[in-house]
């Protein structure tokens, strides 16, 4: 048989690969079928809503749907010359329509995001829009001299676009001008980059603290006899059985000015009664509470990896003359790295999107990006910006994940 250059054939002449696929199809289909309910559930309640929400970061048809005439006129306008009479007429007509439909508030809010002061201008003008007569541009100027400001018009032009990068730009402290350039946000409006930096910094610190605290615990757990280590493991897992909210509020009771810790400090003379430490409603409080809450996520992967490191490695190292420290650093530690990688990644990703704890104990300087997303969701009702901020956060996490894969290697990670 020398002519076997083509694909291998099964006994009945069909290609072997197809035959194999056929024979495995049934078992694969059944396995897939079993996962189907969960898959459907996740897609319906998780993937689709999130995807839809994230599109709001770039899609905004509020202006274009409520102010249709001026949208067309604004698209024709070059963005720098003085607005034409036709444009002014379209705007006045749209304002009158919006007033009648009681949607002027939405439009005003939308434009206000691009140029502050636009809201009052719009509501004020809209009240008279129905009675305005040509020439409309002069009528507008007469109504309020703010209409003479070209930036208002430019803001409207930006707002009128259905697909816009304005929110994404805003989430990284940039704004898009009417002629399509991306420039930095005004000094006092640059808050997001700093907030992202602080969020990453907090997540990094929490990861570091959980590692420093968790590593010895995991080591102890992995070396103790089974009975004792199981008992201690339950203690590690105990916080999981308590609500996150309860744990966070417990920290408030512990750390507040009149709290348990401060009382102890005063009792032992570490702090004066009139100079108690402020450990809560600030960055310190956020760090302490988050470290505590995320500690099990570091300990468990570390423990599962350390348990598999045979004691003969350390014995071998010592028999060869290595001191305890050398044995640990050259032999034990490198083998626990997969656990550190898994734990650190887990804690970091959870920490970077932490919300409840910083909201409760963070005060002013302990706030994270999630708290800001929440503010835009519930406070300012700027869902588009919230979506953009969430999208940026997602990209950051994915990027860090990619960096981690390049540096440590994802298959070098053991979760259990």
């Amino acid at each position, binding site marked *: 048989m020398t002519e076997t250059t083509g694909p291998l054939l099964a006994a009945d002449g069909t290609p072997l690969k197809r035959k194999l696929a056929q024979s495995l199809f049934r078992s694969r289909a059944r396995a897939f079928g079993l996962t189907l309910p969960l898959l459907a559930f996740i897609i319906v309640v998780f993937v689709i809503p999130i995807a839809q929400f994230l599109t709001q970061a770039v899609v905004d048809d509020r202006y274009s749907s409520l102010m249709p005439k001026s949208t067309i006129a604004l698209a024709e306008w070059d963005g720098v010359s003085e607005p034409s009479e036709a444009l002014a007429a379209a705007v006045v007509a749209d304002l009158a329509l919006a007033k009648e439909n009681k949607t002027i508030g939405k439009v005003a809010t939308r434009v206000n995001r691009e140029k502050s002061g636009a809201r009052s201008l719009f509501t004020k003008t809209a009240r008279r829009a129905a009675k305005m007569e040509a020439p409309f541009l002069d009528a507008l100027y007469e109504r309020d001299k703010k209409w003479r400001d070209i930036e208002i018009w430019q803001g409207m032009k930006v707002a009128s676009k259905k697909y816009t990068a304005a929110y994404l730009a805003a989430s990284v402290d940039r704004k898009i001008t009417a002629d399509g350039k991306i420039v930095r946000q005004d000094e006092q409006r640059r808050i997001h980059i700093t907030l992202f930096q602080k969020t990453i910094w907090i997540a990094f610190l929490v990861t570091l603290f959980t590692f420093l605290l968790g590593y010895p615990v995991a080591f102890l757990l992995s070396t103790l006899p089974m009975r004792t280590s199981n008992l201690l493991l339950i203690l590690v897992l105990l916080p999981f059985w308590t609500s996150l909210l309860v744990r966070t509020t417990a920290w408030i009771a512990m750390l507040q000015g009149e709290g348990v810790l401060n009382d102890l400090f005063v009792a032992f003379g570490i702090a004066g009664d009139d100079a108690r430490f402020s450990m809560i409603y600030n960055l310190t409080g956020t760090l302490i509470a988050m470290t505590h809450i995320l500690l099990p996520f570091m300990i468990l992967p570390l423990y599962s990896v350390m348990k598999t490191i*045979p004691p*003969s*490695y350390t*014995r*071998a*190292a*010592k*028999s*060869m*003359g*290595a*001191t*305890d420290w*050398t*044995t640990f650093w*050259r*032999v034990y530690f*490198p*083998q626990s790295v997969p656990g550190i990688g898994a734990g650190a990644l887990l804690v970091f990703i959870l920490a970077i999107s932490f919300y409840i704890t910083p909201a409760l104990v963070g005060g002013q300087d302990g706030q994270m990006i999630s708290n800001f997303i929440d503010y835009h969701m519930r406070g300012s009702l700027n869902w588009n910006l919230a979506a953009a901020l969430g999208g940026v956060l997602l990209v950051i996490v994915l990027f860090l994940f990619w960096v981690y894969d390049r540096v440590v290697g994802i298959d070098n990670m053991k979760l259990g």
Partner: protein
Amino acid sequence: MQIAQKKRCRICGWVLNNSALPFDFMGKGRLWGSGLSQTQDAFVEFRRVQKSYDGEVLVVKDLNLKLPKGEFLTMLGPSGSGKTTCLMMLAGFETATHGEILLDGQPINNIPPHKRGIGMVFQNYALFPHMTVGENLSFPLEVRKIGKADREVKVKRALDMVEMGDFINRRPAQLSGGQQQRIALARALVFEPELVLMDEPLGALDKQLREKMQFEITDLAHRLGITVVYVTHDQTEALTMSDRVAVFNDGVIQQIAPPDVLYESPDNSFVAQFIGENNTLAGVVDSIDGDVCQVKLDSGDIIDATPVNVSKVGERTLVSIRPERVEANPKRLKKGAHTLKAEVLEFIYMGDVFRTRLRVAGNDEFIMKTRNAPDQQRLTPGEEIEIGWLPTDCRALDA
């Protein structure tokens, strides 16, 4: 090999270039200084060593053991007999509950493992998976702060010694079991220790490779002149490799002797049963006269035997006879041999030997091994035959 003749530190095994040490570099004066005055030929010594893990059961009971320099000693015994515990105490990973362990005349009970300078080979090899073969071998030299050039020479020499010179850049995971075993051996020897401990190092290898490695390890040990303490539960391994074998059971050394003595003159029935195949016949001592005793078997037969650890008439005894010392061919029976009736239960042709299961004096598991020779008859089950052995091959042991 010249390594053995170089002057070394007796604890850490370093080869010393100048014979006089200007300072006490181990930080323990008694290790080096006073050792010279003691004239003991024991290189390793256990003195009344006891070990208990839980304070209730003694794993090692009153162990006394001496071994001279250059000896290959095997600790043999079933699992839980205390042999590995002894090895771990010698290595320093377990502390003796009572008693002293001496290395070259110096007590080492309080010296941490990394300062003992004892090479060790582990059952699962314990090669560091994150280091290459070269880095693994270089590790013990690095922690001894030996210069890079020297390290490279020593690593290469050690690898060549186990014929693994081409594998220096491989990772342990890329090696086969036998290759890993050689690297583990080279790593234990690279820092030139005088004492090397091996904890069932061949346990994970297949039979053929194991036999090859047995030969290589003993050959290497004798060439380098190192002292080896080897732990195994495989009696064939113990017999083929060792200068002496210490048979452990229940935390006590049952017998310590060269392999041939151990096999042919076991001190007690545990050793007789544990080493090689053995037939036992239960009975009562009828009379003792110097180095001959008569035993009345439970079946009523009276046979002659060599008394080993029976002392008085009327005592219960187990008489032990090796299967290959039993003869069925009347022409081959030596003069003075003792004969007994037997019934053939099973005959197995094994090529070089015939293995026959007999019923002798009520014992259905009596094995006879006869060499395949032209004049040797093949037996059939049910046949009534007469078998015999020399009273000197028949040892009356404790019951």
